[in-house]
């Protein structure tokens, strides 16, 4: 049967691990010896009671909210701008998208170099007369999360723009021309015609953006390891720090299960309520 190999691979490496984690999460287990110290839901309680875990969840939420509040309007404005015919427009589209193809790891190292004390970013601040605003961008607890957000934005803004541009291509020019002929000004055309028709694309972008924020890891781990003093920890860095590095595999498994539930519940709710009015599709029709 043609379906079997794919199903086997999928079941083994996607579904089985989460079942294993659900089981291991019930034990106090350092990865060596047998699973004998059954503790029931104790690990789960410890995770949920840990202030550092709650803080990490909060950091993920902050990144997700900032993305929606700042990246979305920025992406839409830039997409509208790039949708016009500019000389060198295709080059510009390519340039905007370039950071997206770099790996998170490379992006992180690139920005570590940019953000070195006295380095490029600091010099830039000095050059425009903001020298007194220079901070230790990655070592100041009150700032580090926002520094990382800027890096994340640099990397992912191009993806949003390209997605929205593709959405804009799907809007018939005639609609906007008709509105313009009827006397609508450019702002009205954008506000009343373009943006509503762009709705499905925007909702998809929001979905991908939030899922991305929830599993943020690579950039944070390489740039700060979640520090200083957990000021930039995320849910996944928490899992790796407290489950993998400290060899608390039972505890780490419980964290994995909790993260799985958080992302899954979010995804289903979003599918059900936000994507619902868009054409019934693979997930909406099936799960919702």
């Amino acid at each position, binding site marked *: 049967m*043609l*379906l079997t190999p*794919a199903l086997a*691979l*999928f079941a083994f*490496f*996607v579904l089985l*691990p*989460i079942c*294993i984690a659900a089981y291991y999460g019930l034990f106090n287990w350092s990865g060596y010896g047998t699973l004998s110290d059954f503790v029931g839901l104790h690990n789960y309680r410890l995770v949920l009671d840990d202030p550092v875990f709650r803080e990490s969840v909060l950091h993920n939420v902050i990144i997700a909210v900032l993305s929606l509040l700042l990246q979305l309007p920025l992406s839409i404005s830039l997409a509208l*701008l790039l*949708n016009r015919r500019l*000389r060198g427009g*295709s080059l510009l*589209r390519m*340039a*905007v*998208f*370039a950071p997206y*193809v*770099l790996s998170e*790891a*490379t992006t992180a*190292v*690139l920005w570590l*170099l940019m953000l070195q004390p*006295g*380095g*490029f970013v*600091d010099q830039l601040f000095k050059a425009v007369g903001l020298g007194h605003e220079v901070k230790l961008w990655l070592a100041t607890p009150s700032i580090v999360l926002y520094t990382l957000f800027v890096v994340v934005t*640099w990397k992912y803004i191009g993806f949003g723009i390209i*997605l929205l541009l*593709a959405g804009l*291509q799907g809007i018939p020019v005639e609609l906007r021309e008709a509105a313009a002929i009827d006397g609508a000004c*450019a702002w009205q055309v954008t506000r009343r015609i373009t943006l509503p028709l762009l709705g*499905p*694309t925007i909702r998809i*972008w929001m979905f991908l953006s939030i*899922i991305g924020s*929830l*599993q943020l890891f690579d950039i944070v*781990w*390489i740039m700060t390891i979640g520090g200083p003093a957990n000021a930039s920890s995320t*849910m996944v860095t928490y*899992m*790796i720090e407290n489950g993998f590095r400290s060899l608390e*595999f039972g505890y*780490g*498994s419980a964290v*994995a299960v909790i*993260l*799985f539930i958080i*992302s899954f519940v979010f995804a*289903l709710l979003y599918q059900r309520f936000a994507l619902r009015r868009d*054409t*019934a*599709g*693979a997930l909406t*029709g*099936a799960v919702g």
Partner: protein
Amino acid sequence: MTAAVSGRVGQSGLGGLAGRRRIRPTVPLGYLVALVILAITLVPIAFVFLGGFRTNAQINSAPTGLPHPWVIANYKTILTTASFWQNLAASALIAVVATGLAVGLGSMAAFALSRYEFRLRETWFIVFAIGLLFPANVASLPIYLLLRHINLLDNPFGVALPEAAFSLPFTIIILRPFMRAIPGELQDAAVVDGASRLTFFVRVLLPLSRPALMTVSVLAFVTSWNAYLLPLLVFTTPSHFTLPLGVATFQSTYSQNTAAIFAYTALSMLPALTFFVLAQRRIVGGLSGLAGSVKG
């Protein structure tokens, strides 16, 4: 869904995005903003490439200066060390295996799910579709524990197999509507000519699905190529490290040798940027297509 997805996969891409009729004349403001965007995206990348041509002494005395004189020693050193090439080879091997498996098995599954009626067909499809909602990073620790069990730690397949499994959902979701849209008459004709199911699949369906196959291949390849967390957990032997892991490790190991870090980072960006220039239509088309198919 069918038309939406195949349409997007087929024609999106930067080329398709260009050539748009304007509604009103462009304004100088547009060019100003464009220039700023260009600077913000490209200056950091250029900064790293240029930094690789400087010495540590140059970097220390003027962190943002241009190379003076230009030195190629950093690049030369890295290109002649084994570790860079090992990282590159490991990344390539893993990405090829993961892509081959995901697209090979995924196209077979999409074929079955798109062109045959059988019990629980939609259920199986939903099982795969749900995988799309499961972030790979969240699964990393459980996968690590599984790999420990089956002795696949510190083994390239320990990374390639899970990556292939996690690429199956979008592969199947993009391929299924594409294959479904291929007219049934073709299949009838092939059967009349005496072709078996498998012959039809290999000789007719796969060649016709080529654009969609390219798209999912590029997506699977890039996903694997950029992965960091799973390789980080799985590999302990430096010669097995993939490029992202290699870059991060190099950065933390040689933190005193900034010039070398610049060069290593620049070289590690080169394959991705080259690949992007060559395959940008597929990458962009694939991402928009994927978004389109999640939407339905």
